[in-house]
């Protein structure tokens, strides 16, 4: 829970525990700002850009919620409120059975240098595909059945020494 100061700061954090914030998406949050009430959405958006350029991310978050309140139908206001809202991490059911990827790492140690610069797709110690293009390697690997998540890796240059 971020530290809330006694005297509410001019740009308090949009805090996911705050009832105004939607806990699933983290959007919402109490907003107070000292910026004057400019007449246009452009000026408001410019103020947001200023806050981001000043690395005042908490200020930009709070301001993006104020923007949404002022211009609820404006796509840019909606975009900024959405992308800047603090995120909420959540546990999700597994897609694949749990397993370590030691075999893949071992394969890369043994054979990685033969595929320098290529995207390789592995499953345990089996090479499913290798291609200079990522998308092609993934596509090739899709044709090979395997019962877990394949391991994609872009093999680097051969480390000297």
């Amino acid at each position, binding site marked *: *829970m*971020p*530290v809330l100061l006694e005297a509410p700061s001019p740009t308090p954090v949009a805090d996911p525990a705050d009832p105004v914030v939607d806990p699933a998406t983290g959007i919402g949050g109490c907003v107070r700002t000292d910026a004057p009430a400019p007449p246009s959405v452009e000026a408001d958006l410019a103020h947001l850009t200023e806050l981001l350029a000043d*690395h005042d*991310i*908490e200020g930009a978050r709070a301001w993006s919620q104020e923007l949404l309140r002022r211009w609820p139908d404006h796509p840019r206001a909606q975009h900024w409120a959405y992308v800047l809202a603090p995120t909420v991490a959540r546990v999700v059911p597994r897609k694949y059975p749990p397993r370590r990827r030691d075999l893949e790492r071992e394969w890369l140690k043994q054979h990685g240098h033969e595929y320098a610069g290529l995207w390789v797709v592995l499953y345990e110690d089996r090479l499913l595909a290798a291609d200079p293009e990522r998308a092609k390697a993934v596509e090739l690997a899709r044709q090979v059945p395997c019962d877990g998540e394949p391991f994609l890796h872009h093999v680097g240059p051969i480390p000297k020494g």
Partner: protein
Amino acid sequence: MIRSFTGSMRYQTEVYQGPHRLLVAVEVLIGDSSAASTLLLDTGSEWCVLPEHIAGEAGYPGEINPRIPPLHSRFGLIYGRIERIPFRFVADVGAELVLEATCFVSEEWPGPPVLGWKGCLERMRFALDPADETFYFAPL
């Protein structure tokens, strides 16, 4: 899944060290210095990086070592030297931890002191818990 730690301290987020904004900052006693310094915890930094005055204050004065390749940083190429300096993590709770960190020291370094990966973080177990803004640490 549980991990155990021997000490912990509060970390700061988004604080300024002069003109520099430190996203995650922890306090460390460096060498023989009489005061703790605030360091940027940066897992993306190859080395710990110290400005000359902090290394000097810690008891490790010195000059640029031509053998040491320059550091590629967002401030450009930085020339310096490599030292091994004791870092003491002064725990708010639990035990203190000491580790002799490999540091890139330079008078050209305009940035904040940095806690980097090689020669430091790579050799300690640590965790960051934003719920209580606490940095947990332990020896390996």
